[in-house]
C-alpha cells in the first residue's frame, strides 16, 4: 500500500466550479479519508493510484484548479505530525466498532 496526501484547490467562483469541488471531494472520499477540508490521506495500491489519478484529472479543470499528490513516507506515524482535532483512522488496524 502507498500512502498519499491529496490536496486540492478548486475555483468556486462559478456554479460549475462548485460542482467540480464537490465531485473532486467525492473522488477523494472513495479512496481515502478526509483529514482537513480539502486535504485527504489515501492509502492505495499501484492500480488504485492509477484509477484515483485518472478520476481526479477527469474531474478537474486544469486552467482553474490545482490538485497536488504528495507521497507520504512510511511508517506514517513517524513522519506525520497532527495537532488539534484529528479523526484519522488507520484502516489496517483491527476494525471493531
Amino acid at each position, binding site marked *: 500500500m502507498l500512502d498519499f496526501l491529496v490536496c486540492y484547490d478548486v475555483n468556486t467562483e462559478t456554479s460549475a466550479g462548485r460542482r467540480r469541488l464537490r465531485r473532486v471531494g467525492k473522488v477523494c472520499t*472513495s479512496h481515502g479519508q478526509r483529514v482537513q477540508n480539502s486535504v485527504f490521506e489515501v492509502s492505495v495500491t499501484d492500480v*488504485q493510484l492509477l484509477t484515483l489519478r485518472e478520476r481526479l484529472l477527469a474531474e478537474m479543470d486544469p486552467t482553474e484548479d490545482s490538485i497536488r499528490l504528495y507521497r507520504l513516507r512510511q511508517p506514517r506515524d513517524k513522519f506525520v505530525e497532527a495537532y488539534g482535532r484529528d479523526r484519522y483512522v488507520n484502516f489496517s488496524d483491527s476494525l471493531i*466498532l
Partner: protein
Amino acid sequence: MRQLLNTLYIQTQGTYLHLDTDNIRVEVERERKAMIPLHHVESVVVFGNVLLSPFLIHRLAREHKPVTWLTEHGRFMARTETPVSGNVLLRVAQHGCACDRARTLAVARFIAAGKLQNQKTTLLRSAREALGNDPELLRQAARDINGQIGCLPLAETVDEVRGIEGTAARAYWEVFPLMLRANRDFFWLTERTRRPARDAINATLNFVYTVLANDCASACQAVGLDPQVGFLHALRPGRSSLALDLMEELRAVVADRAIITLINRQQLTPRDFVLHEGNTVTIKDEARKLILAHLTERRKEEVTHPLTARKTPLGLVPHVQARLLAQHLRGDRAHYPPYLHR
C-alpha cells in the same frame, strides 16, 4: 509474511451500515461514527442487532466480500454467498488436506502442540500463585506435559497424536483442582464427565466449552472453512470437528482460566449449583449469566498475537486462527501456526 486482510467487526447494537461514495458509512442513532473505504475491508462480520443497507450488501457481494451475521453472543447465523466465491477452492483444499494422511498428521500435530503448550502455560501461571506443596506438583505436571510435547514429532499417525494428547490431559486434569484456591472441598474433580456432569467443575467446564465451541464454529464459517471437516478430531456426522480442533488451543487459556478465576474470586460458589439425585449437577441460571458476562469481558481483553504481533481481542483469536489455517490449506503458509498464549 502475507498481511492479514482486514475484517470489519461491528459489535455496537443498533448500528446501521450503508454505502456512501465507495465507503461503508457506520451510523449509530443517525450519528456518523466512521467512514471506511471499501478497498480496506475484506469482509464484514456483524454481531446481533446491526442493519446493513441492501445496496451495501449488493456491493459487498459484487466484490466478493462476505457478510457474516452472528448473534450478539457470537453464534453463527448466516453468511452471504457471493456469485463466484473463493470458498469452494478453500473447501476443496481443506478436503484434499483431510484426505492426505501426511498433511492431516502435520496439522493435528501443530494443533496438539499448541494445546499442550497452552496447558503448560496455564499450570505454570497458577504455580506462581499457589501455596504450600501445590506449586511443586503443578510444576511437575507442567514438566510431564513438556515431555509429551517432545514426543509429538515422533508420532506417526493421528491416533498416536491423540494418545499423546490424552496422556498430557491426564497429567493436566490430575492437578487441575490444585489451581483452585477457594471452596476446595466442594470443587473437586476426579475425572472429566461430559453428559451428565457428575460434579460442579465438570458442569461448568461443559458449559464454557459449549460457548467456546460456538465461537470457533462461527470463526470457521466466517472464514469459509467447512466446520465439520477436522484434522485432529475424527469425522462424525453432525460433529463440528474443525471447530473442536480450533478450540483445542484455546481451552486452557480461555475456558479453564475463566473458571479458575471465577472460583478463586469466589464469584462462583457452591450455592450456584444444583445437585440432583443420581449424582448429576447443573448450574443455576444466575451463575450462567455470570459466567457469560465474564466470558464477554474476557473476549474484549487484548492479547498480542505471537505471529501477527498485533494487539487482538481474545474473542477474535479464533477468527485469526481460522484465517491462518485457511492460508495453510490454500498453500500460502508452510504449516499451521497454533495460538500460543504468552
